């Protein structure tokens, strides 16, 4: 029994690797071409450093990089949590009240039209160089996609399921809890994956506009010191961070909603 489970696991692992192979080959070819170009064209290191150089410098500065990663990660997670709570509460409000939906939705949409470049320095100006402005900016960027995902998820509830619950005498709240909310889970996780990638970028942007520590301010300083290799090293870290958070959403989905058929992206 356990050995067959193990065999299945290892087969799944092999399948995953096999599917990732084209992507890996493509990525390595690109890096390889980049490396060759840097070595053969004699381009200056302060203009375009080779990948090997970036990796080497990242390793040398690993301590500084880590020190600056922690605040970024903290801002991302806190801002994203705030956005999740807000999106969840407000999604319920607009699901239950058409009036609130009409009143609030335009404001939510308007919040998405604010250009981050202009708004980030302002938010820093208002709330200082601490954690708060970063949290707010991450929340601002990720709130709307999460809200839309939830609202669409509720709307995807099968008519028949709701009729069935109504025939059983379920109240509006029970219908929400037993049918609409679980129906929204596949949409929720899809939204989660989209907005978690925005979240890291938003945190870095906020730090760029002013911070004591963080990947954003690290990049800015490195750029001002003519160290594109360190800028790229920080970019590498932020990409890894995003990938990590992205994979975490799959893990959470596996645990929280194992019934979602991820091959089709939907339940059933």
């Amino acid at each position, binding site marked *: 029994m356990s050995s067959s489970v193990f065999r299945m696991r290892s087969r799944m692992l092999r399948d995953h690797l096999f599917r990732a192979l084209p992507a890996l080959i493509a990525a390595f070819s690109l890096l390889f071409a980049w490396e060759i170009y840097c070595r053969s064209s004699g381009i200056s290191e302060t203009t375009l450093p080779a990948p090997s150089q970036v990796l080497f410098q990242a390793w040398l500065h690993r301590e500084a990089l880590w020190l600056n990663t922690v605040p970024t990660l903290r801002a991302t997670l806190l801002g994203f949590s705030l956005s999740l709570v807000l999106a969840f509460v407000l999604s319920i409000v607009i699901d239950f009240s058409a009036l609130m939906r009409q009143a609030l939705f335009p404001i939510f949409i308007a919040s998405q039209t604010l250009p981050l470049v202009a708004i980030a320095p302002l938010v820093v100006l208002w709330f200082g160089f601490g954690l708060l402005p970063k949290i707010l900016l991450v929340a601002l960027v990720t709130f709307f996609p999460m809200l839309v995902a939830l609202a669409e998820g509720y709307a995807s509830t099968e008519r*028949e399921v709701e*009729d*069935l619950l109504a*025939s*059983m005498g379920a109240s509006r709240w029970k219908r929400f809890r037993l*049918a609409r909310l*679980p129906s929204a889970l596949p949409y929720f996780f899809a939204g989660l994956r989209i907005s978690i990638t925005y979240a890291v970028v938003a945190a870095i942007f906020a730090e760029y506009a002013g911070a004591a520590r963080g990947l954003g301010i690290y990049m800015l300083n490195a750029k001002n010191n003519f160290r594109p290799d360190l800028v790229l090293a920080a970019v590498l870290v932020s990409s890894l961070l995003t990938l990590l958070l992205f994979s975490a959403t799959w893990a959470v989905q596996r645990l929280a909603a194992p019934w979602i058929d991820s091959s089709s992206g939907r339940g059933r």
Partner: protein
Amino acid sequence: MTVPLLSLDGVSLNFGEIDVLRDVTLDVMPGEFVSILGPSGAGKSTIFKLLTGAATACGGEVRFSGRPLASNERPFAFMPQRDALMPWRRILDNTTLGLEVQGVPRKEARKRVEPLFEEFGLSGFERHYPRALSGGMRQRAALLRTIVQDRPVLLLDEPFGALDALTRNQMQIWLEAMWLKHRWTIILITHDVREAVMLSDRIHLLSPRPASVEQTITVPLPRPRFSNPATRAEAAAIETSILDFLLSPQIQK
């Protein structure tokens, strides 16, 4: 003479401009197996919507045990046209849904449902999600979810309509056996003439939309019907006469 358990008296209903039910009159006796047979789009499912409170009549009266049906009264357990199993609930939790809505504690609900899994051919699948079940099993799970609600009348909307012919036949045989054992009061919606004849005590034939009851046919055949070749031959004759009636020009309009 006994009072009908359920009767519709001159019930009419429209969705905006569309007249769906016009003057529908029919009744169901206690313990009776009644079918409502009619063409697609006639308004069959609408009759169930009316009974479960998802739609309101604009005329006529629904009586339960001789008294007008109050709007908060729920003597019906409803099985929708598609199985409406919730993909996020395991089969066991899908079947206890009605009890959960009634406020029965989860543990007790499970205790009530679990012994029935064997009879419904679902044992071993309690902890599976619906997507792991075949079409026939899904229908049996939906039917189990319906009967455990323990309501006086079962409303089954084309329970076997989506199944392949062979599975549908097996399900009909199984349902007859179950009904003979439990004697539920059943209203079955179908557009399968043979299914109606083999299963019902009486069949109400609906006209195309706006639906009204064109004719009520009593099926006097002995049970169990599927296992007896002579009965099946007689059933075929009734089936033909119903088809002739449904296809006749004055019904087609």
